[in-house]
């Protein structure tokens, strides 16, 4: 609750800060301070400190899991600001508005990770989506950015429609928006789930699959991620996607966990398709940015395994997975923004000019590929473990690891370009504070890969 209200206030404050503050560095400082305050207050709420006492029973519930995820999401946003806030200046004139929109998205993230009613879920997802449409199109003079924005908006609205329809049907079946009531109405083993419920469930599943860009609902992703300004792609592909996953898992765990058997096969097929299409298509990309878009689809396939497994290993795992994925991808994008040429050839000889950035990029790429000693490995390990513990989906696990092996191909192409090929990589100016920050992020990725207890100990105690 603390963080939700602070973020909302910060959103409004940032909107007007552009009028009052002329210095861009002050605006940036204000945003960082606001975000820091809301992180601190959110952590305080984990330990029982409530700044606001508002009764939201039945609408939202801030349990440990959601508070913990909110912290992760906000810390990742903080890192994102530290690494890329300066780059936002280059996107367009309305510098303060971008921060404002991001704060609103954070509100949506908090809503959708803590909802206990389908209404709040809908609100959360929409509050996330609408600012994203704007951010995607924020590079106004770029045709690709405009196209991406329009495409995202049209398809996004369509999937919102699906979601609303699904919510309506489920309301028709159980007479309530509350997750508990819905779960109760379907938990009786003697009653077979009715057609209303099944249809509603499927519509909800498809619309959520759209939002996390799972195949076969992924077609918007490459174009939108490619067209959007790179700084915002970084935010969209990581923190936002992670939040929607948490919502996805929360919804299916709390409301439909008891009829897991009826829908698990569909999720398994979606997972398999996502893994397959994401990885295979990524192999053929020529631009690193587009490759990362497809890789985000592929990574979504792994995260879907937590929704399929729905057990404690899975929920622990998705926390680690989102953290590992967000940190690595934000770091990679932060480096990508500094490049003049986004193709693989643009990275040729990068290691010679920027040895530190290249080494850090290697760590991020290894983490995304799931190589041991990095957080990405343990994250994938948790997912595989969760599905095996659930039982019955060994074919999916084997497919997943084979796809992970394919992913090595395209991640390592970047490494090969940076280290083993000669060339003149064109890099923009890199400040030393940027280098320090990104080195710390890389150290975090390794630390989590060796000792993930760091994250979980804090979660449990």
């Amino acid at each position: 609750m603390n963080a939700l209200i602070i973020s909302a206030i910060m959103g409004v404050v940032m909107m007007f800060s552009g009028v009052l503050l002329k210095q861009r560095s002050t605006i940036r400082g204000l945003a960082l301070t606001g975000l820091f305050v809301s992180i601190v207050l959110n952590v305080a709420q984990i330990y029982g400190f409530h700044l606001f006492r508002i009764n939201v029973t039945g609408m939202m519930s801030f349990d440990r899991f959601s508070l913990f995820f909110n912290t992760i999401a906000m810390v990742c946003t903080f890192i994102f600001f530290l690494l890329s806030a300066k780059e936002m200046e280059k996107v367009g004139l309305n510098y303060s508005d971008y921060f404002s929109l991001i704060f609103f998205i954070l509100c949506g993230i908090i809503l959708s990770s803590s909802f206990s009613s389908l209404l709040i879920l809908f609100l959360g997802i929409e509050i996330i989506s609408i600012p994203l449409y704007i951010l995607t199109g924020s590079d106004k003079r770029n045709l690709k950015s405009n196209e991406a924005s329009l495409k995202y908006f049209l398809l996004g609205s369509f999937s919102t429609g699906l979601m609303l329809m699904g919510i309506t049907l489920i309301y028709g079946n159980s007479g309530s928006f509350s997750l508990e009531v819905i779960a109760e109405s379907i938990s009786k083993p003697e009653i077979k789930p009715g057609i209303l419920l099944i249809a509603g469930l499927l519509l909800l599943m498809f619309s959520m699959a759209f939002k996390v860009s799972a195949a076969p609902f992924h077609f918007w992703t490459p174009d939108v991620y490619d067209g959007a300004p790179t700084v915002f792609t970084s935010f969209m592909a990581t923190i936002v996607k992670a939040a929607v996953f948490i919502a996805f898992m929360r919804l299916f765990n709390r409301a439909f966990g008891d009829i897991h058997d009826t829908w698990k096969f569909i999720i398994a097929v979606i997972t398999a398709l996502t893994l397959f299409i994401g990885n295979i298509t990524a192999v053929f990309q020529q631009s690193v940015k587009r490759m990362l878009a497809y890789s985000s689809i592929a990574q979504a396939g792994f995260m879907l395994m937590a929704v399929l497994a729905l057990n404690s290993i899975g929920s622990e795992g998705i926390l680690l997975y989102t953290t590992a994925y967000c940190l690595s991808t934000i770091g990679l994008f932060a480096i990508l923004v500094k490049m003049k040429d986004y193709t693989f050839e643009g990275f040729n000889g990068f290691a010679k000019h920027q040895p530190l950035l290249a080494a850090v990029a290697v760590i991020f790429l290894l983490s995304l590929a799931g190589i041991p000693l990095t957080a990405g490995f343990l994250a994938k390990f948790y997912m595989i473990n969760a599905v095996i513990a659930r039982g019955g989906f060994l074919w999916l696990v084997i497919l997943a690891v084979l796809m992970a092996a394919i992913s090595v191909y395209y991640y390592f192409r970047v490494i090969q370009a940076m280290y083993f090929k000669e060339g003149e990589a064109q890099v923009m100016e890199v400040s030393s504070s940027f280098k320090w920050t990104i080195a710390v992020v890389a150290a975090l990725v390794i630390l989590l890969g060796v000792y993930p207890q760091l994250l979980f100990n804090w979660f449990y105690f």
Partner: protein
Amino acid sequence: MISLLLILIPLLSGVATFFFKKENAAKSWALFSSIVTLAISLLGLTVLNKTELLQFKCDWLPGLGSSFSIRLDGMGQLLCLLTAISFPLIFISTWNRTYKNAHNFFALMLLSQAGLMGVFLAMDALLFYFFWELALIPVYFLSSIWGAERRIAATFKFFIYTFVGSLLMLVGLIYLQSLTPDRSFDIKSFYALAINGKTQNWIFWLMFLAFAIKIPVFPFHSWQPDAYEQSPTAVTMVLSGIMVKMGLFAVIRWLLPVLPSASFAFGEKMISMWAIVGMIYASLLAWRQDDMKRLIAYSSIAHLGLMVVAIFSESEIGMQGVMIQMFNHGINILGLWVIVEILERKYGTRKLSELGGLAQKAPAMAIFFVVIALANIALPLTNAFVGEFMMFTGIFTSQISEYEMLTVPAAGITIILGAIYILRMVQKVIYGNTNSLTETGTDIGVNEKLVLGIIVILIIVVGVYPQPFLDLTKDTTDFILNKANLFPLFKK
């Protein structure tokens, strides 16, 4: 404590090496670190050989049932010793070679040593997997940065090949963990498992594929000649001397005792047959090679094939033969690589057709070369004779083999073929007349004499008096076979 030091010393000194700026400093530091590791390993074998010193255990990932558990047993001792001996020898024999960004080169070498040590020490399946990959990643970078012309494609093939295998192994390991009652990755829990035959069968394939690629067993060998040829020789030494032993070692430690019925079902009837086909095929190919690196690469497939057959014969003497032969093969092939390295540095070629007459110009090298070559053919009084003799005896007298009348003669043919291609190599390199390239040849220097001398001494000492090695591995062998031979019914 000893076991922990064996991992920590190369790991920490490897990380430190990244920060050295001078080439010579990095080189000396790496050599120093590897000698310290060797000393620790020798201490662990002799003075400090106490159970409580050889094992170490602490919590690592309690939620997943995995702990940081390492222990040196007999087989581990032998392979750690091989790793510990090899690295100083590699560093000394390639001392005169210069590398671009040498500090990175030596840092990665030491990191791969840490990974190898970890593989041989790990007593926890997840930890084992960790080190398995940790050994691979540095080698990938080493070969891709400092290798020959076609290095990028060749090493990438090698990497993808092994990575696919190891991921499938990971699935197998996780599945095994989910079957244990306490959901633990500990090796004891794995050994306590009794899994039904059908489940064993496909877990066996998930895991064996990783090992088969690493060894490599025919038909999974196609990465190997390219990778050996394109890597810098120091890395080829690591790859062929030590790294391929990871596969054999893993079969013995993680496959046979955990999945006995599947190992029995597929081992002799299928995998041994593949290995035999591979041995003959690789020997024939080795015969026709002109490049020394490729020749040795193919000979390595043939030698390791025999070890695979011996492992799956599941007899005590055969198994002990495999363990001692893993050590011997590492030493012998290292010797051959040192010779190749010298030739390549001095004459700029590895082609048999371009060399010749070196016995006149470099008599000391010629003597060492001949001894090492004879050891590779397993002549009596050399170390490989002991190993191969034991393996043949094991296969022939095994209680479970049914096709020994087929496998033993077929394997015997490859010994003859081995003599042909190795002697052909010796003949082309050191006999005959000198040509324009070798006319100005000189003999080898002190450090090369030192390395080759140590190798030759090891060859002869182990060849004449192998008993300490047999004593060392006896407990492990008995234990493994006890676990593996669960089916007295099948015995003849």
